[in-house]
């Protein structure tokens, strides 16, 4: 049991380290922070001074070493714009992002799961066709297109809702819908195919042969099995709570983590971008750990396989 978790945690840490390394290299190859923050007009002396101040004049491997050493001391660096600790900058944006992504996440579950289950139960019926057509449309339309269309319809033509920004609850509606639709569509398709797979299993027919009413067969026998593959994709959505709304925050000028990421990337504000990516990677890895754990809870066959060696 201990070894199982130790291996998982070690792998998780390694994943995060790889993400951070990758981001470190790409960011430094993709542009010069001195130029993007100081502006093209800055004097060569000022540029040099800026580079020295932020350690950008050192060789790449030295920068990398210092960066990693700092991470282990809990230091993620400061924003090159204003000198505020990068982590603080990111953390203060998280509540705003969660205000969009959490309700959107609930919307994905509340719509996607029942739609997928019903589509599978009434396979090839009108319900199924309607759900699938909507789902294909829902996940093929990019969220920025959907966002702009919703703004055009509901904010500009009928003017029921604001086009963007912050304020009251009405500012939340369009971004949440925009975020939720795609995920609900993906989930509906995924749950449908998981349910169809399960409904075709011999144990479903065997349960009916025992005289269990169909509704109980679906609830007690089919859903617990269909939940196993579904957990994977729901876990992925949980991992996306912090940074899954980059595009939508830009469309609706919402002051969340995604917006900060876009601005910081444009400015090559290295510490901020890296802090965000570190958090995103950590969130993804953490939700994956939870998914692994849930597999063990939902599927007794895996619970034995995973921990068997250590008992």
């Amino acid at each position: 049991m201990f070894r199982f978790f130790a291996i998982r945690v070690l792998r998780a840490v390694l994943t995060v380290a790889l993400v951070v390394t990758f981001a470190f290299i790409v960011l430094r190859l993709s542009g010069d922070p001195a130029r993007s923050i100081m502006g093209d007009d800055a004097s060569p002396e000022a540029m040099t001074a800026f580079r020295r101040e932020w350690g950008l004049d050192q060789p790449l491997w030295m920068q990398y070493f210092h960066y990693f050493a700092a991470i282990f001391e809990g230091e993620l660096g400061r924003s090159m714009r204003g000198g505020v600790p990068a982590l603080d900058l990111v953390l203060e944006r998280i509540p705003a992002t969660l205000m969009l992504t959490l309700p959107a996440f609930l919307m994905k579950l509340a719509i996607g799961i029942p739609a997928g289950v019903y589509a599978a139960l009434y396979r090839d019926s009108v319900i199924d066709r309607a759900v699938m057509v909507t789902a294909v449309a829902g996940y093929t339309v990019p969220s920025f297109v959907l966002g702009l269309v919703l703004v055009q319809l509901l904010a500009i033509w009928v003017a029921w809702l604001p086009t963007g920004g912050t304020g009251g609850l009405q500012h939340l509606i369009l971004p949440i819908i925009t975020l939720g639709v795609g995920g609900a569509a993906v989930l509906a398709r995924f749950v449908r195919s998981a349910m169809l797979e399960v409904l075709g299993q011999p144990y479903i027919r065997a349960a009916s042969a025992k005289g269990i009413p169909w509704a109980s067969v679906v609830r007690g026998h089919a859903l617990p099995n269909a939940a196993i593959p579904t957990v994977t994709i729901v876990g992925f959505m949980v991992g996306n709570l912090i940074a899954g709304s980059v595009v939508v925050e830009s469309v609706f000028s919402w002051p969340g983590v995604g917006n900060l990421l876009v601005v910081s990337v444009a400015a090559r504000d290295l510490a901020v971008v890296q802090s965000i990516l570190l958090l995103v990677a950590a969130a993804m890895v953490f939700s994956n750990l939870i998914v692994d754990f849930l597999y063990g809870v939902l599927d007794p066959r895996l619970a034995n396989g995973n921990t068997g060696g250590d008992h």
Partner: protein
Amino acid sequence: MGNLAGCATGYVFPAAPAPQPLLVIEGMTVDFNGVRVLRGIDLTLARGEALGIVGESGSGKSVTWLAALGLLPRSATVSGSVRLDGEEMLGAAASRLDRIRGGRVAMIFQDPSSALNPVLRIGRQIGEVLARHHGVSGSNIRAEAKRLFDLVGLPDAARRFDAYPHELSGGQNQRVMIAMALAGKPDVLVADEPTTALDATIQAQILDLLTTIRRETGMALVLISHDLGVVSETCDRIIVMYTGSVVETAPADAIFASPRHPYTQGLLAALPPFEGALHRLVPIEGQVPDPTNLPPGCAFAPRCPKRLAVCEEAVPPLAQPENGRFSACIAATVQPARLSLKLNTSVLA
């Protein structure tokens, strides 16, 4: 004929069938997306009878019973009549069917490990049968389950209640399935190839168990198998099916002594001999016809060594050449039965 001895001596075929059969299937047809896979089945099952259904895959032997119990997918169209104690089952309301299934007619399946839900404990799976059909609840479920597990010879019965199916072997899972079937105290147990997925040694144990349980409980047993040998040891009467029709019905011993239908004769010729020197087995020539493209007359005619010109024109009806025996063969009624016996004595001797 060592293996047949039990069947031949232990069972006396009644002079007349029981006045009120337990279950009657009449003119049942099943179509899948417009393709007829069951072409008018008539059969009766007496109380306590052990009936064997034999045929190749695709002959409709399983579909018959899945259709009778309303267990086919919606894409199947079922017509005809299935009466249990005189009450029509086809088209019955779901709630009534749910009381019959598992309560009066139980069914067990080919691969027990996939017929048990992998994420539910065995106790829960047998418990829901006890709760639904007999209102057993609480700690009584555990006690009753243990009694049933003991009855089917499941080792370490008390602990199996909390086990998951993957923790048991295939044979143990089939015992669990049988215990679950018995939990409803059914009048009929339909066993659909119950030993096909099991090791040869376990097969015999499961068949013995089914025989013992039938003797002790008095329930009727329908044993579906592609293996004439398996069915002959366990059953009183055998129905042979081919491409969705019954081609022969006879007492188990009679079918071995003098098979009427050329297809049955072919099946027997393809069985290894029970005693004596091994010899080359005789396969049935040709292929099972595609259900979308059946010949106009007897479906077996293209493969039949005895076919006459008339065989290819009309579908032969199930005729009764002697008491208790039915055969759907024109050639068999025209030619003397002795001929077929001669053909097979070499196989059986």
